[in-house]
């Protein structure tokens, strides 16, 4: 009872005292002088380890500028676009995130998404609202390039006619080709192509197929698998009958790549497996079991193992390990680079004496040119894509990723 009286009195006092009011106004002022960067990544589900690492990267970039550009405070919020029901990104949640970002006028930049399918949902919304979106991980070609995805892509994501979507990772048309070239290089001839029937998986599998035809790999079959199936033993039998010496799976850890790898082994199929960057995370090794991947599985990735980064990238790697006491996952540096590019744009606005808001940040991020970051020196091209084209082919040795080839 005493407590409640005290609290009521305090409330009354707060309402009455002009001094307190003054402080409140000051606080509001400080808030007005702040802008927010948000990220929308799948935080629930097996991508969590990967996305935690990316969020750490973003936080590091903001901490490096002291959380401030000029006298503008940079706030950051880490949003989840997954739901426990799906254990993976959820279209409804991603749509909510985009709406939330639009409604909150202090949001000036949106880092995301992780999954290309999710990007399709937020891209047109944020485009209309004029908020810059920088993705650390979307690789589906159709999001930015005409003629590689659906007929109406990418115009459908740009209702305002302007480009607001940028990405720091190279796209799947390149990634699929790198995988096909590598398959040929190690002497594989007959390939069975699978995809997970998602935007990303279908896209990269399509790119692989196109390149495989070009360079004369024989395609003995294609199929789309059910990511929630309990196993793929029957499918593996079909692949075995087709006589494939390579299985290409366009999919991610979340769409059951680990189970597929296991069933290839248990079904007695003596074929290699190549998977794209959606599997370049430790969760994939955990799900598949190191034994099923050893000397059998190759993972392409639009970049290099964090350990092999050079220059500013090497600094990032060292700082990351020092700050978080763990090894960064493959995409941590991309989260970092996204935030860095956005912060650099804000810095340029500040130097030119402009006000940091949605419109200026959008315009300035687009002008990123010869940016010297952790991924090397790169620019955003006219589509919003990075000019960086580095890819690596990795395998799994003794339960750890190990790079076998780097393609520039």
């Amino acid at each position, binding site marked *: 009872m005493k407590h409640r009286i005290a609290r009521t009195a305090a409330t009354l006092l707060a309402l009455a005292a002009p001094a307190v009011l003054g402080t409140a106004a000051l606080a509001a002022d400080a808030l007005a002088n702040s802008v927010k960067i948000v990220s929308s990544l799948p935080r629930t589900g097996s991508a969590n380890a990967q996305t935690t690492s990316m969020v750490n990267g973003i936080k590091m970039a903001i901490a490096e500028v002291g959380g401030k550009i000029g006298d503008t405070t940079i706030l950051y919020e880490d949003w989840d676009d997954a739901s*426990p029901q799906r254990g993976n990104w959820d279209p409804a949640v991603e749509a909510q995130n985009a709406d939330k970002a639009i409604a909150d006028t202090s949001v000036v930049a949106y880092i995301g998404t992780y999954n290309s399918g999710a990007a399709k949902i937020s891209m047109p919304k944020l485009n209309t609202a004029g908020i810059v979106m920088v993705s650390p991980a979307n690789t589906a070609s159709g999001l930015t390039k005409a003629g590689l995805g659906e007929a109406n892509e990418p115009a459908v994501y740009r209702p305002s006619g302007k480009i607001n979507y940028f990405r720091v990772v190279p796209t799947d048309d390149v990634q699929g080709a790198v995988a096909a070239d590598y398959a040929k290089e190690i002497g594989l001839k007959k390939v069975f192509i699978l995809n997970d029937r998602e935007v990303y998986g279908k896209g990269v599998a399509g790119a692989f197929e196109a390149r495989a035809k070009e360079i004369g790999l024989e395609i003995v079959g294609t199929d789309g698998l059910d990511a929630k199936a309990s196993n793929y033993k*029957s*499918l593996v039998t079909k692949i075995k009958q087709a006589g494939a010496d390579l299985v290409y799976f366009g999919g991610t850890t979340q769409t059951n790549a680990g*189970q597929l790898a*296991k069933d290839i082994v248990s079904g*007695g199929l003596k074929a290699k497996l190549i998977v794209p960057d959606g599997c370049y995370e430790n969760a994939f090794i955990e799900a*598949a079991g190191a034994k099923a991947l050893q000397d059998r599985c190759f993972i392409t990735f639009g970049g290099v193992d964090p350990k092999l980064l050079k220059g500013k990238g090497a600094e990032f790697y060292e700082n990351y390990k020092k700050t978080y006491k763990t090894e960064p996952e493959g995409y941590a540096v991309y989260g970092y680079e996204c935030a860095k590019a956005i912060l650099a744009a804000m810095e340029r606005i500040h130097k030119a004496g402009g006000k940091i808001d949605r419109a200026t940040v959008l315009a300035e991020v687009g002008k990123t040119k010869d940016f010297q970051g952790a991924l090397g020196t790169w620019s955003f091209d006219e589509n919003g894509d990075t000019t960086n084209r580095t890819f690596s082919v990795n395998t799994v040795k003794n339960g750890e990723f190990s790079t076998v080839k780097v393609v520039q």
Partner: protein
Amino acid sequence: MTETEVFLQQVIYGLSNGMIIALVALGYTMVYGIVELINFAHGDVFTLGGFLALTVVGALGAAAILDPNTLSDSSHWLLLVGLVVTAGLFCGFLNVAIDKVVYKPLRRAPKLTQLVAAIGVSFILVNIALFWGGAPMEVFGGGNAAAASKDFPEILEGSNLLGEDSNVVLRLEDLAIFVITIPLMIGLTLFVNRTRLGRGMRATAQNPIAARLMGINTDRVIAATFLIGGFLGGAASVMWAIYNNTISFQMGFRAGMDAFTAAVLGGIGSLPGAMIGGVLIGLIRAMSDQYIETRWTNVVVFGVLILILVFRPSGLLGLKQREKV
């Protein structure tokens, strides 16, 4: 591989997968037969059984009773039976507890209320599995990323019983499914048909009020039903884990969906119906993967279900029954 070999292989896979589905389906059909509730939480009870099994294996590994490096070199039948019993009992008593806490107070409520309660329990269990997955179980490389699929160690030796050169693969785990599932099914059938409690179950299924009038303790019958249904679900989760070598917090979703479909296909409420339905769905899946395309498999399974329900609305072995939800 010749056509015959391919067909044989798909039959093996179809039967193995189908048996697991059938075990889970029995849990649905038994509970439905007695209390007319579609227990949507059953699939998730199954999930927790898998997690318990992994925790037990992990604990044995941590206590140095099992050696992670040599575990898969030989077959551990005793461990397998131990896991089936442990996970079975765990799931059985969990099922009984859920009934006591959630379903029993709602027994006289409208059927829809119970159904929604079951869905609610399902969500709770999925999230418990999610937390459980976050617990450290790294002994066998399981990792502690909550939502990641966990690698379940091989406890049966994995070589091909038909010889390494044979195109058709038959492994101990395929056999184990038959060796464990078939006795369980026979035992259940005998139990229901030959024992006093089994007779009580049949009576309660036919008419609960009349059964009570005849002096049958229906509460006890219901508890026994949940216990047995849960036990079979737990046993199935261990079979599932050793067969797929993966468990995840979502494994109950698809397993439950398939099993529920199997129960409806066979005629919900009918025990042999659930067994036949499960095996049938396993076979249809395998054949569709092989002869149609994997991407069409779900369409084929549910297409068959619809066809059967059009011609036999109460399922393959279902009887015309009182109106149920």
